[in-house]
């Protein structure tokens, strides 16, 4: 019984989700904002010379791959609401930006100067992601 239940749930999770709804697009962009925030914390450790370079490198790589995956997901999906096309494009660009910055951190995990720069740029990328979320939820000025 437990095995059957497990397989049923596993099948459900691997079955794909169809078109991208506004909510799902919103959640995807929120994930980008969260990745940028996490990246800033890793970059802050590099900037303050307060981390281990292997840790910074592996974390940057992992987070960068997640941003890339999010970008692919957003770029490939068909939108349920065509009027959010601009936000989708902007989100894909932000995802690429975050992924690129994390890749830079991965290359220079022991360089304090690079760490500070990446931290600053990730902060800007997070602001862009938050602005897209605000537009999607109708909270933008």
């Amino acid at each position, binding site marked *: 019984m437990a095995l059957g239940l497990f397989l049923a749930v596993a099948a459900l999770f691997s079955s794909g989700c169809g078109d991208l709804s506004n909510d799902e697009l919103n959640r995807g962009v929120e994930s980008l904002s969260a990745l940028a925030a996490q990246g800033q914390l890793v970059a802050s450790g590099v900037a303050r010379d307060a981390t281990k370079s292997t840790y910074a490198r592996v974390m940057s790589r992992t987070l960068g791959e*997640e941003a890339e995956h999010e970008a692919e997901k957003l770029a490939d999906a068909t939108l349920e609401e065509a009027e959010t096309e601009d936000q989708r494009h902007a989100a894909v660009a932000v995802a690429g930006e975050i992924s690129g910055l994390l890749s830079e951190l991965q290359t220079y995990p022991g360089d304090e100067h690079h760490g500070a720069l990446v931290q600053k740029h990730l902060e800007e990328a997070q602001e862009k992601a938050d602005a897209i979320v605000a537009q999607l939820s109708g909270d933008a000025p």
Partner: protein
Amino acid sequence: MKVILKIALGIIAAIGGFLDIGDLVFNTQAGALYRYDLLWAVVLGTIGIAVYAEMSGRVAAVSGRPVFDVIRMRLGFGFGLLALIASTLVNLLTVAAELGGIAIVLELLFDAPYNMFVVTGAIALVAIVALLPFGGLERLFGYGGLALFVVVATVFHQNPDWGDVAHGFVPSLDSSTLYLYFVVGVFAAALMPYEVHFYSSGAIEEGWTEENLKENRLNAILGYGIGGVLSVALVIVSGYLFHPLGVEPSDLGTVALPMQGAFGETGLLLALGGMFFCVGGAAIDSSFAASYNLAQFLGWEWGRYQGPRKAPRFTASWLVFLLLGIAIAESGINPVEITEYSVVFSVVALPLTYLPVLLIAGDRSFMSDHANGRIAATLGWLYFAVIIVLSLAAIPLLLATNGGGG
């Protein structure tokens, strides 16, 4: 002096066995999403595991029977088999998640491929189990796990608003399914069935008798209590740092970030080291628990103390569980996802594990003067009611929240 040392070692062993990848992941995610609001659920889970660990240790010490022996005796072959299948699946997922956790920590420390570390980590565990006696295993992982006290130090370094923290210990219910999913997750992470399977079988391995009952009670209360303090600390540091930034911790490495923020490289290394020993200890506990259950149910000779010659099927099954764990961990599924499934599915198996323990621990004809008193019986039945509710809610919540993804 010898008694004090023994109790101290038992407490340390309990800490090492309590905090595993499930606690690290769910508590950190709970803090990031809901700040301190789920602290009450951590306390609820910690008291629950202490209550049931004390009972299972007492039954083992008085009757010489570990949990799975009791399950088959009390529930009969059919239900016993169901319990065996359910707990074996959960234990297997747990072994895979813990092996994946070991590999992630080693990858963060040495930046070599994850897949390589899954295998080398498992080989290292086999070597450690082959070389050390049972008590030595507990001590190694227990002492190592103490490095995670850096999380408690981080709480004081962050100096959060203590009023807000205190408010989190007051139970509150949010109607969102994601909140309820995390209530189930945090509670279940504390009550993973392998913990009592291992604890009671460990009591038999160490030859506990009625003379060890005081030690058993202290281990359960202080050991799991201190483990609970570490879990609470994980929620607080995550709530303090991650919640305002909107960080969604989806990687084991993220758990160490608050300690890096507070104490730099030293904090980071202590956190990663503590995580390594806790997760490593849990990999041994859960893989042993899986083979203990199988051997006890089928009536094989079992026990680390017997050695591979006297208990060949037990030893072989342990190696098979490790190999299957390696295969799952190497499959490419994120260990954090495996952890989430193993924790949530474990809730479904909880009633089958804890009901027989509760029944036998309260049976005067079996336990005579050591049967459950009023407090143990009341707490036991209260917790069993909670377990039933959560086991019914676990799968629907997993589906409704898309595995906690919201």
